[in-house]
């Protein structure tokens, strides 16, 4: 594995354009297939710095973004002794999964302006649209808190391993309960708080085999699917009733 990464990186270095400090990167697999025993997996992101300058002032950030989704945050208040959902806020265009691996803690990577522009760090993610009748900030904080608790948003500073002066890699865990669709793996090279190079690679997570067929059946032929469920339930109910009829 290590040799493979080194060879790949070397080839990238040799074919690179002759200019300033640059970045090449790749991922260990570009499709994750969800099968019946899928409980999560790891992907390895590796990269190399071309024409490196001093290690001082340099930082690497690897971001994995899931397909965008709508986040609905609701707040419960006590009404007549019962806790009831009252106010809510919606944040559209937020990633359903977010992972940041970096050489430094987020705040030391770059100033907030840069982090916001590139969406580096969960706190700096900007929703495409906010739907709220009141101050959305506490709702936004609550959303991030929940996403982190559920393992959907994660920041892991200090998890990028340098195999040599210029060659690095990081291992990113993909949990079992993530949305299917297109993910983007983005690698950023930062120097003195500015992004000098960035590269994005798509990663697809999708169901396969029988899971895929069942999911498709449920959505494309829901009537047949529902009838199969009912038939299965009745058949098994009847079989058990026949089996158990004979005195044990």
């Amino acid at each position, binding site marked *: 594995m290590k040799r493979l990464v080194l060879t790949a990186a070397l080839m990238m270095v040799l074919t690179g354009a002759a200019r300033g400090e640059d970045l090449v990167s790749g991922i260990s697999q570009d499709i994750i297939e*969800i*099968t*019946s*025993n*899928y*409980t999560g997996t790891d992907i390895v992101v590796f990269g190399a710095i071309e024409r490196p300058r001093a290690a001082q002032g340099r930082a690497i950030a690897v971001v994995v973004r899931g397909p965008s*989704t*709508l*986040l*609905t*945050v*609701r*707040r*419960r*208040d*006590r009404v007549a*002794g*019962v*806790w*009831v*959902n009252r106010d809510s806020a*919606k944040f559209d265009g937020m990633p*359903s999964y977010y992972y940041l691996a970096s050489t430094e803690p987020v705040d030391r990577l770059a100033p907030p302006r840069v982090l916001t522009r590139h969406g580096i760090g969960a706190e700096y993610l900007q929703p495409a649209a906010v739907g709220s009748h009141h101050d959305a900030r*506490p*709702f936004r904080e*609550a*959303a991030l*808190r*929940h*996403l982190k608790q559920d393992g959907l948003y994660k920041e892991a500073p200090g998890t990028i391993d340098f195999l040599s002066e210029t060659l690095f890699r990081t291992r990113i865990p993909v949990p*079992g*309960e993530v*949305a*299917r669709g297109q993910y983007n793996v983005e690698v950023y090279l930062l120097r003195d708080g500015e992004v000098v190079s960035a590269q994005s690679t798509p990663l697809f997570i999708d*169901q396969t085999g*029988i*899971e895929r067929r*069942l*999911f498709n059946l*449920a959505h494309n032929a*829901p*009537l047949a*699917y*529902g*009838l*199969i*469920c*009912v038939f*299965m*339930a*009745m058949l*098994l*109910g*009847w*079989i*058990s*009733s026949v*089996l*158990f*009829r004979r005195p044990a």
Partner: protein
Amino acid sequence: MEIYLPVAEMSVYWLVMIGLGLGVGFLSGMFGVGGGFLMTPLLVFSGIPSTVAVATTLSHVTASSVSGALAQWRKNAVDFTMAGVMLGGGVVGTVLGVWLFAHLRRQGQMDLIVSLTYVIMLGSIGTIMLRESLTTLTAYRSGQAPSSRPVNHVWIHRLPWKMRFRQSRLYISVIPPVVLGFFVGALGAIMGIGGGFIIVPAMIYLLRMPTNVVMGTSLVQIVALTAITTVLQATSNYSVDIVLALLLVIGGVVGAQMGVRAGAKLRGEQLRLLLAIVVLTVCLGLLWGLIAPPGDVYSLTLGVA
């Protein structure tokens, strides 16, 4: 040990799910109820999205009720006329319930309404059953014959469109069974229940059906109603998970048969006392969830609400 659920899009321990099916199936066979009122909260508690839990539990209820219903049918304890009349109201109620289900989810009030409905239904039915069974048991103990013919509901006998239900030895209006069926159908779609815990007491205390046909009749009407609701949920909400259903059903049918045997050893009022205790326990648990201060007042939903 884990298996991926294609519609819920998550993995679960399959042995746990079969165990859940077995335990709940046992109770349903014993009491002649579907067990959905236990299964749905248990599934939600194990992390299954509530929409999938509600829709998938119905298959478990179908299966464990089929074996129970067949067992009762062999004992000639089913009033098919009554089941058919109730089903007429039930289908209308189900269609309304599936629509209401989608509407409440958009409003974010789904969980509250479901919990409140559970607390009110389980609380009142559990209390009635507890009181009645205790009175009967005390009467047995003191050596008196229990007063088996209770007060008649006069208003029920004034209603029009009377019909003869031979198996139940009743001549009553079709309105109460149709309304009962409608009500249970609507609740079933929202709560993921067959409604046995409502039907059984209502048949006993409201319609005054003889206890020996109550179990069989309610099971037959539950089988039909949950089958229809499953198809409706599958076509309108795409929320039935067939892999989860299979796991629950396998456990459920075995448990139901064991439950029927265990139930046959107990007297009617003993069964009702036990069921009352189970019902009230679930009710108190849900009530606590409503009034206890939540750990976090904020909750988060991903995707299209």
